[in-house]
């Protein structure tokens, strides 16, 4: 098995074991082990399908302090349809004040999506599943 496929499977298996946070309950989500708070804004507001755009993620630690040395990766998919995003978005820049640019976001279907965000800070990795409904 190719290593990229293995990593993808590992992330998906890990993600599937995490119940997504309640949708729209908050504008920020706490990672599974409680290390970080994750929130985002989108350059495309309201979100709509079939348009590529950028998101800015904001990462804070447990106390609410902005974190500037994180690495963010993201996988998205529709659990009900067993497929992922039509693009492979990735982090392009740390903007300071805990903000990170993630480019290449695009959704190609209305409905319920889950975005699995992995936050790496030094040796502390944590993960959160953000629920998202696009209509």
């Amino acid at each position, binding site marked *: 098995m190719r290593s990229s496929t293995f990593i993808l499977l590992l992330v998906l298996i890990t993600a599937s074991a995490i119940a997504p946070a309640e949708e729209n309950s908050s504008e920020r989500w706490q990672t599974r082990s409680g290390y970080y708070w994750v929130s985002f804004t989108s350059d495309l507001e309201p979100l709509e*399908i079939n348009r590529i755009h950028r998101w800015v993620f904001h990462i804070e630690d447990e106390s609410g302090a902005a974190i500037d040395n994180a690495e963010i990766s993201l996988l998205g998919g529709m659990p009900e*349809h067993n497929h992922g995003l039509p693009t492979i978005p*990735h982090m392009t820049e740390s903007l300071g004040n805990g903000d990170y640019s993630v480019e*290449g976001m695009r959704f*190609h*279907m209305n*409905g319920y999506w889950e975005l699995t965000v992995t936050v790496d800070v030094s040796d502390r990795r944590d993960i959160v599943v953000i629920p998202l409904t696009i209509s």
Partner: protein
Amino acid sequence: MIAFVATLLMGIAWWEFGPRTPDSWTEAELIEIRSLSLRRLPELPADPSNGVADDPRAASLGHKLFFDTRLSANGAVSCATCHKPEQRFTDGLAKGRGIALSQRNTRSIVGTAYSPWQYWDGRKDSQWSQALSPLEDPAEHGSNRLELARLLATDVSLKTEYEAIFGPLPNFTDTTRFPDRASPIGSEELGTAWESMIDSDRGVVNTAFANLGKAIAAYERMLQPGPTRFDNYVAEIEQGLDSSSLSDEEIIGLQLFVSDARCTECHNGPLFTNNEFHNTGVLSFPGDHPDRGRIDGLKQLLADPFNCKGEYSNDPLHQCDELTYVRTGIELIGATRTPSLRNLGGTAPYSHKGQHATLAEVIDLYNRAPLAMIGHNEVEEKLGLSRRERKQLEAFLIALDAPIAADPKWLKAPE
């Protein structure tokens, strides 16, 4: 017993032929329906890779080139040979036929300025780059880029228009520098001639060739879908008017389209396509190997010197978001690009090799959800629509036809 059978038959007859009134719309359905309306179509996106995309002079030149049969090896094939304006820019054939039989079904070019990808397999990422490919395909135009560049430089009318837009063309008459025919694509003879040229001369030819495609693309951007009876229906219900634009059967078909038939999973947005790649278990064309689709198209795209990041792109920043963040993966095996459903009724046959002669056959495919011959069919559940429902869905799809929204002068060969 007789009474029972008679009652049963009457029940079936009612189910199949009896009058039926559409249900009222749910809020979720209304949102979905509005999202399909042509009124929701955003402004034409810019194409930074084509510096003349919105230059009317380029559109005028592209119009001439589109209908010019001199852009072919036998002088008989133009873009309009397969993209016939009177057939919504398709050809009515299972597979396109230029000089010979091409590999796939001819897609319409109407509205393709909105798509990040071109062709069934997305092996091109702009209209201008797409326009180049058939010109050198031995089964389509069968020409070569050097002859085409020379045509631009020798025909007085084309040369004048070209140079007003793109600047001076080189002199291709020096046969020590420019062979009669040459291209990196096609026969060995063409390839040998191409290799005999120096780099800078190859670049000169490639630039003229790319500009030819950019002019054709400027013309193709003029071809957009017009409002259909469906769009009128959406406007009516948004204004709270009694709907008269669609029949009851078509409205029920629309209900199926946005709900049980799950069509909007891929055929979404005002153009009824997400322009993405899906394996839906379409059987191979008789005698052909299964089509690998996007998985091979992506390889070609990434290696294409005329892609958005290539040296012939006019995007100074080469941002090319779609290409930068393009998806790879095994799910692309056998996947082809979702076609628009606008103007569907007049563009049979359907699917990437024209495997389906009728819309009924396409709908039947989703009703059966067969195993894919290659890769994995994303449609895992049979739709299970009744015969009547399939007819209603088909009726709705046929209602998505309308004249192309373009100045009539673009819909015929130039005077």
